[in-house]
């Protein structure tokens, strides 16, 4: 019995132990992050924004100040409250880390969804229609493509936070988390459209497309039902790699003050805050840095595994270093 390409890919993925290990690590991170409110309520008994300037915590039977007299926050206690220590306002770092990672992952995931929503129709239209449609779309996206993602992101996000923005029914205030999501999603559109356009152009001349056209299928239906299934591999592989880049870009944008605004935690916010406190309390920098490395490493390892499984011959081109 012959197997379809999807079940073959799944089998390859199941046999790829490294990819599975990274995937499991990422799944664990997602579960932890989703459980952030549960952890905050049941274990740490605080919220990510609650200050505890004068509180005390019991460690090994001894009462210890959360903030010392000089204002130095407590380091990791490895117990329920202040598991990873406190920050300079006496906030529980573990709680902030979970909420922050959640924000970062939501922004990254949302941005990739937005990219997909814009890039797939654009890539299909440009590749299938060709001619003037293609010229307009390609020139426009080349303009985005020819500028670095970070610079473009910082500029767009600064411009939007000058005024806020109104897109249809959605109003984005000047401190909103939607700004980095929107900006990252927009900046990555050409990274997805380019490979899709190329692939559609190659498919356009295939007999099955001509047959569908000859049978009188409308272009929109043809693109959705005949072409789209062939693009699934590219879409999945590029989405996974863009997700990794989006997470890193959020941290960089936020670090430059053009992403998530403190006190709302995100990994970028925590790293920036940790860097300014690193002399007195290195844990404030180390903890979010290690968290970001683990997220990127697990996601990257899994994404590469998915790529190996779906595209063993390496036909989907995606520049590794780009888009950061």
């Amino acid at each position, binding site marked *: 019995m012959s197997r379809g390409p999807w079940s073959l890919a799944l089998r390859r993925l199941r046999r790829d132990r490294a990819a599975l290990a990274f995937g499991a690590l990422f799944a664990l991170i997602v579960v932890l992050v989703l459980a952030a409110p549960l952890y905050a309520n049941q274990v740490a008994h605080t919220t990510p924004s609650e200050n505890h300037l004068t509180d005390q915590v019991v460690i090994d039977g001894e009462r210890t100040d959360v903030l010392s007299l000089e204002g130095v926050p407590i380091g990791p206690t490895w117990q329920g409250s202040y598991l990873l220590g406190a920050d300079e306002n006496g906030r529980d770092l573990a709680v902030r880390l979970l909420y922050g990672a959640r924000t970062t992952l939501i922004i990254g995931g949302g941005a990739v969804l937005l990219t997909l929503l814009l890039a797939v129709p654009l890539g299909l239209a440009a590749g299938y229609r060709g001619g003037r449609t293609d010229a307009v779309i390609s020139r426009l996206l080349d303009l985005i493509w*020819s500028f670095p*993602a970070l610079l473009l992101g910082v500029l767009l996000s600064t*411009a939007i936070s000058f*005024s806020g923005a109104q897109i249809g029914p959605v109003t984005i205030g000047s401190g909103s988390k939607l700004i980095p999501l929107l900006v990252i999603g927009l900046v990555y559109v050409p990274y997805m459209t380019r490979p899709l356009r190329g692939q559609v152009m190659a498919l356009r001349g295939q007999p099955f497309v001509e047959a569908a056209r000859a049978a009188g299928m409308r272009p929109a239906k043809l693109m959705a039902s005949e072409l789209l299934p062939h693009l699934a591999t590219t879409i999945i592989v590029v989405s996974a790699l863009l997700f990794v880049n989006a997470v890193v870009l959020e941290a960089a944008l936020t670090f430059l003050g053009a992403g998530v605004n403190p006190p709302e935690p995100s990994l970028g916010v925590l790293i920036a805050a940790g860097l300014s406190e690193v*002399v007195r309390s290195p844990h404030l920098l180390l903890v979010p840095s290690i968290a970001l490395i683990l997220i990127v490493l697990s996601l990257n390892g899994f994404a590469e595994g998915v790529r190996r499984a779906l595209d063993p011959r390496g036909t989907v081109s995606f520049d590794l270093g780009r888009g950061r």
Partner: protein
Amino acid sequence: MISFAARRLAAALVTAWVASIVAFVLFWTVPNVDPAYWLGGGQKGTNETRALATEKYGLDDPLPVQYVRLMESILNGEIECFYSCGSLRDTFVQALPVTISLVLGAGLIAVGVGIGLALICVRHRGRWQDRLISTVATAVYSVPSLVLAALLWAFASYRWGLFPQEGYVRLRDSPWGWAKHLFLPWIASALPFAGAYTQVVRASLLDTVDQDWVRTARAKGLSEKRVIRRHVLRNALIPSVNVWGLDFSHAFGGFVLYVEVIFGLPGVGGLTANTLASFDLPPTVALAIYLAIVVVFFSALVDLVVAWLDPRLRQPGPST
């Protein structure tokens, strides 16, 4: 080659021009943002400062007139900040060598390490050296520059005092001081790229070593070293050179922004980051345009170098 160069430079000029229009529209004329509000000092401004700004920048004039006037003053370097900053163009030109040193050094390290490790991988393909290097390359690629820069600065410079905490020394004044100030920034910016390049070059080398012409070269009795150097490496590197060029030009609006802030380097990245954070409108537009010019110029330069290396790429229709 000359006609290719002319076409490529013309395309670069058009891109820079469109970018300047986009920057103008983005910051000067967004709906529901009143430039007079920001030019008149933002929250600290009064109705009088706003009226003054309206008059000074001629905000009541038609937009094309405002655009031309703003671009003239940006290119002349006459941009003024609300909180005075001197001539922005001169500051930018002074800061540029710092950033070029950073990007060029990081690029050389990334490409050198990438090629070197990939060659080791190919020589020992399938054995433990290959697997070790591939694994390390993936791991290194997963450490974002931002995190690496923050950790290196915080520990190696600040806490342990192994390297200077901030500042910059010109190469002309003291090569040793120059290298010492730039060493950690180079490492922080180059490592993730080195990891990525190792993987890309390794894959490309592995594709090439099985080609017929390589077998022919071996059959001719050439030494393995000569086969790799003259026949495999040259052909395998051509696709990568394009990627490196784009990465190089994009670096001027990429990692330099935060690496220079973290290491306190007085380059264009730090300048831009600080200006953007101050929410000061004219210098923001000016810096956006200056950086766009730098990125577009280096993209064009890189394309010319690549075309010079590989004549097949001189066909009409540059990619960017």
